[in-house]
């Protein structure tokens, strides 16, 4: 087991090779670390996450997870290493929250997808962690956005990943669940040694949860360093093109 779970080397991301969105991206994440991605709207945060999770192929460079190039991995092998919570919620009919969480066991079940007693224990534990036991039999399309977000997080935990990728995980949550989510992220990384790569908008949350911060701006990595070094008032002002002295977040 290498110390880094994710290593991104000289990667160019984008949908077309003649129109790269972010060029020359290099960074790595160690096990148990939380790395937040910040940057102005449209900077390419989501595209970067999609590339790392294997939805979009990188235009150049290499991405390795646990020292293996993701382009050489089978979908099922990827799923055992990386779990994803995206901003878009699935559109389901007649599917209970428990069934959605159970879907996280997909990479581990047999051909017909039957869950073993251990699988059920893992599902229960994840639902307890996210405080959604009461929603077990509720239909996923009939609960609130914030509840759905927690169901999807529980689903991701059930996948027992080594790297958890999240796109704007707090955007549907109210303040109480934002705080809970941060606490839960901390527990997840320390208890299960999972690394987290997430895009976030709220600088206050970034400051509280992240070990490192990755800033994207103008088609490149503008800064990648420890949270304390990145999150200074003047850096935030420069990153988001604010007037000098406009930001008093800290």
């Amino acid at each position, binding site marked *: 087991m290498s110390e880094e779970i994710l290593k991104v080397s000289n990667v160019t991301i984008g949908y077309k090779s003649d129109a790269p969105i972010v060029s020359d991206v290099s960074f790595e994440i160690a096990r148990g670390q939380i790395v937040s991605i910040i940057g102005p709207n449209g900077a390419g945060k989501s595209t970067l996450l999609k590339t790392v999770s294997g939805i979009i192929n990188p235009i150049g460079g290499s991405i390795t997870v646990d020292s293996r190039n993701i382009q050489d991995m089978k*979908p099922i092998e990827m799923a055992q290493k990386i779990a*994803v919570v995206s901003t878009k919620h699935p559109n389901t009919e007649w599917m209970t929250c428990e069934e959605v969480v159970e879907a996280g066991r997909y990479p581990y079940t047999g051909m017909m997808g039957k869950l073993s007693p251990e699988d059920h224990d893992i599902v229960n534990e994840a639902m307890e962690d996210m405080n959604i036991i009461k929603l077990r039999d509720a*239909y996923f399309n009939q609960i609130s956005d914030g509840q759905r977000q927690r169901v999807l997080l529980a689903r991701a935990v059930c996948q027992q990943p080594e790297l958890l990728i999240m796109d704007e995980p707090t955007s549907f949550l109210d303040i109480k669940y934002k705080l809970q989510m941060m606490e839960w992220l901390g527990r997840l990384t320390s208890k299960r040694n999972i690394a987290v790569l997430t895009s976030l908008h709220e600088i206050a949350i970034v400051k509280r949860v992240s070990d490192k911060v990755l800033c994207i701006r103008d088609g490149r990595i503008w800064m990648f360093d420890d949270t304390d070094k990145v999150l200074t008032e003047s850096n935030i002002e420069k990153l988001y093109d604010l007037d000098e002295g406009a930001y008093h977040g800290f």
Partner: protein
Amino acid sequence: MKSEKNRKYIISYVILVISIIILGILNLTWGSVDISINDIISALTRNNDNETAAAIIMEIRFPRLLGAAILGGALSVSGFLLQTFFNNPIAGPFVLGISSGAKLVVAITMITFLNAGYILSSWDMIFAAFVGSMICMMFILFVSRYTHRMGVLIICGVMIGYFCSAITDFAVTFADDSNIVNLHNWSMGSFSGISWSNIQVMAIVVAVTTVLTFLLSKPLGAFLLGESYAHHMGVNVGKLKLQIIVLSGILSACVTAFAGPISFVGIAVPQIVKRMFKSTKPIVVIPACFLGGSAFCLFADLIARILFAPTELSISTVTSFLGAPIVIWIMLKRQNSKEV
């Protein structure tokens, strides 16, 4: 809660099986000639007391009944696959124009080969229908790359349907052969005239494709959460999509080859079944869709045969009459509740 769910599934399955049995018996007894249960039993046990009744049962009603049950099930499973594929509750082989594409290619193939004095086998018909299905499916897929709005997709499908029907009607009108009369009846959709050799072929094709579909229950279940979640859970999405297209294409092609295009079964039945089971779990819903489609078509064919006996209605007349209100009801229900 788990056992309560399972009990619900079992009860729903029992209801489906019982309705198939009852409708099966009614289909054998009722018709332009009513036949008693005793005569049916003696015909089926080949203990022929009543020759005419035995002939009607064994040569006409029994193969027709099996045909309706097998093809109805196939149509419904095909609809379920398409609804899953497009994440769209009103997708189905007929609305998306796939059945009409199959009809067009079968009609043109039949006309061409009949003129050359060659009679098409069941396998030829299925193959021609499959080619037609795939051509329309490719077009629908092309459209779906540019829009994710389900309304636009459905409108395109309906337009393809009209377009293909227009060409088919044109071909049928100008094809001058006595066999074309059959072609015309077939292109309206009907379970009549299904022979035992047809039954053999369709049973093999539908059984194999339905079992293969059932074996895809696990990835199909993941696909219900959407393409990107399925991908992140380890589903080979490209492969699964191809499998869905080919399987649903074969199922609907088989129906069109033997009974012509049949409307609404592919949309309405999977919807009713999901509502009845309050689930979309493929492992539960796929077999139930098959049974539901069988029951629905047996019922529709019964009405088609007996309502104005001896005049027969085309099967689509009945399925549209029953299915269209169901689809409207489903759409309104989804608008009102949060079942989106």
